[in-house]
């Protein structure tokens, strides 16, 4: 199953699929994207007065040199493992969920609400309740656009996207209204009770239960997609909705299911950040983890092992960005620049691969269609 991304028409590429060309196989492609990205972003690094090689040393290697920073990489990878998996599942089903950010926030609201009100209950009650509620909240936020898409054919890109600012407004409404900290008056929700905090996994670290949860989610998602009939239906629906429907697959149900699961997983990212890191709801809870999920999913070629690696890589970059800021005086915002450029080079190379690799197949098909009067079907 090489080149999973190459198998997505109307997906991340354009149409058709990529043959198994080793030169263009996904790991090579991602590595090339990383190199190009570093070449491009060496410009800003030079502007910041630093040596690009030293900077990338800080970015990539330094985080891996101490126990503390390695664990911090895992902490940083946790939310984007969730959102990356969420986005990848939806994209593979051909459902363009751009709304992971909002779904994450809804999950966070649910977790903060339950976590603060759960005084006196034991962790084995509170924690599952938060996880379930957060997943449901994320799924609920994902439901409306999914329903509109399935029922009325309304493009979900715009609707999922527009619900992100709305979710942020809901957060702010709560923080400036009923949940405003009664003591400090800051727009922060009350701290969650101790029983609602995710336990840390290791001493002297922030690594918490959320990471384990994220790994389990990614593993289960991998199993379902790669090994079960449900997963095959989801892939078929994403690759060719018409062909899938023709084969008797209920594409609407598949899309709806993928969208809700995607929303639920994004919601878990919110739960994990509230219960594992912030212990309360703040308006700055997510610095765009939902959008980063798109980077992770794309970089990971929409496969779950890929998502895992990509999340670790971006976690490494995030930790490295702050270390580079301290050591070399490069503004840590460079991390976002790298993310953006990396996403663009990856998606560009995927398109290029499809163009090159798919050329022979496409031409043969064109030759066939050139001699075949079809009814204008694509």
């Amino acid at each position, binding site marked *: 199953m090489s080149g999973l991304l190459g198998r997505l028409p109307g997906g991340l590429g354009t149409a058709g699929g990529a043959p198994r060309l080793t030169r263009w196989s996904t790991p090579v492609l991602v590595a090339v994207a990383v190199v190009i990205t570093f070449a491009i972003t060496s410009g800003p690094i030079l502007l910041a007065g630093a040596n690009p090689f030293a900077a990338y040393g800080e970015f990539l290697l330094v985080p891996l040199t101490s126990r503390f920073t390695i664990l911090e990489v895992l902490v940083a990878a946790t939310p984007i493992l969730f959102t990356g998996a969420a986005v990848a599942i939806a994209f593979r089903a051909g459902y363009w969920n751009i709304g992971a950010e909002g779904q994450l926030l809804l999950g966070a609201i649910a977790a903060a609400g339950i976590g603060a009100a759960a005084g006196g209950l034991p962790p084995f009650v509170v924690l599952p309740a938060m996880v379930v509620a957060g997943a449901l909240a994320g799924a609920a936020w994902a439901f409306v656009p999914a329903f509109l898409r399935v029922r009325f054919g309304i493009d979900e890109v715009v609707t999922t996207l527009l619900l992100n600012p709305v979710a942020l407004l809901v957060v702010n409404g709560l923080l400036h209204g009923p949940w405003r900290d009664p003591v400090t008056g800051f727009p922060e929700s009350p701290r969650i009770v101790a029983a609602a905090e995710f336990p840390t996994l290791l001493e002297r670290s922030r690594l918490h239960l959320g990471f384990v949860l994220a790994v389990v989610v990614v593993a289960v998602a991998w199993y379902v997609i790669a090994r079960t*009939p449900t997963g095959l239906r989801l892939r078929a629906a994403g*690759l060719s909705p018409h062909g899938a429907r023709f084969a008797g697959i209920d594409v609407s149900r598949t899309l709806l299911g993928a969208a809700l699961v995607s929303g639920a997983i994004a919601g878990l990212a919110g739960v994990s950040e509230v219960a594992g890191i912030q212990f309360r709801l703040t308006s700055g809870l997510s610095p765009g983890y939902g959008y980063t999920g798109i980077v992770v999913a794309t970089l990971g070629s929409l496969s779950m092992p890929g998502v895992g690696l990509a999340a670790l890589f971006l976690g490494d970059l995030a930790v490295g960005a702050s270390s580079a800021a301290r050591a070399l005086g490069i503004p840590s915002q460079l991390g976002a620049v790298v993310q953006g450029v990396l996403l663009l080079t990856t998606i560009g190379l995927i398109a290029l691969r499809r163009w090159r690799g798919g050329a022979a197949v496409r031409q043969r098909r064109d030759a066939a269609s050139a*001699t075949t009067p079809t009814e204008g079907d694509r």
Partner: protein
Amino acid sequence: MTDDLRVTAAEPAGPDTVLELRGITKRFGDLVANDGIDFDVGRGEIHALLGENGAGKTTVMRIAYGLNRADAGEIRVEGRPVEMRSPRDAIEAGVGMVTQHFSLVRPMTVAENLALGRSGGFRLDLDAARRAVADASARFGIRVAADAVVGDLSVGEQQRVEILKALARDCRVLILDEPTAVLVPQEVDALFATLRRLVGEGLGVVFISHKLGEVRAISDRVSVLRRGRMIGTVPGTTEERELARMMVGRPTFGVERAGSGAGADAARVLEIRDLRALGPQGVAAVDGLSLSVAAGEVLGVAGVSGNGQTELVDVLAGMRVPVSGSVQVDGTEIAGLPPARVMAAGVGRIPEDRHASLIPDLSVAYNLVLERLADFRVSGRLDERAIRAHADELIERFSIKARPDDRVGSLSGGNIQKVLLARVLARDPRVIVVSQPTRGLDVGATEYVRAQLLERRAAGAAILLVSEDLDELLELADRLVVIYEGRIVGEMAVDDADPERLGMLMAGREAAA
């Protein structure tokens, strides 16, 4: 092969030659679509390019119009070599083309379509386009409303707009790719009248077709292509049989029919009554259609494309919900049911768009089991071993040239059709709904597909065959019905079928007999 000696020597083109192709070669991957083709057309001449589907007619003319680029060869217009990098080059050189898929922007008006791509001022000059329409109407008798929205026009009118577009660019040679495929006979007559006026004005016309009668009716010269090679150029008066021989290269050997058709008293397996279904524009495309097919019978549905065939097949495939009417398989109502239930009722479906009916980016093995995943599941997961064994068996049985792990999209058209055929026939359907089963396939695959269908008929399946290929219908069907504007307008046993009456019915010129 002696018939290849008939090739006329590629003599230098005369002074009146408008468009001249020399040694055009084009490969698509391993497929040689054009192999050193020479062709020319003169002023005031209609030169037909004849050949079967896939012979390379369209490709060579797309190259002449800059839509494809040749791997080798030379193009000259009025003696000057021209490099055709894009249609813009072709248009500037005076070459116009009406492709099969009209190159019109449907939400725009005729005038806007005419103005598109014209060099001129920054301000859009629609009045010039309107004048061009009026002018063409006066000179060539081509009548179209300049301010009509193209999407609202009939197919024949849209074709006129395409011709107008080329004329408005002062083209000196006009290429028409299968222009009659979408027209009813009266429209064909009108088109031919227009073409005669055009050549009367000194235009050169290239007429791509695979229909012998038309080619003889309109052409001054005929060039025949076969499998990418130029077989020869002969006068337009050449006998049909001679043209057919050049086109096919050998006498077609028909498929042996296994036994006779179903008896009159055979059980009616598929019964359609008063079916109505909407087409893409929301108008009734199937409009009160009734028919029935018996066990062991092939019912052929003839008709010009766009008369409701696609919608009829969609309804039978479970892909379109009808407005009203009934579809029964062995007495079970299936109208409006989703594909899974339609299949469960015993219907096998092979629509004309085989690519869209499979998942091209999934493997052959997965595609073969996609309709029945429940049968390939062990304790919640996919039974990969059974899936593979199933694929191996069907690949063997239907002689598909592919491995189980190959992507369906990477296969040839014939093998894609075999995959679909295998998926359907492996389930022993009681009813088979099949549309344009051999379109675009090579001779071998065509014969294979037809033989498989006849084998099913012998085994007692009821087969509804929709085809635009009359020869195919005559070869396979026991009984023919003609569909026109969503209704069955005529019926006949295949042995009584006479082309003239069929043609009249297909043109809607005769009420149900």
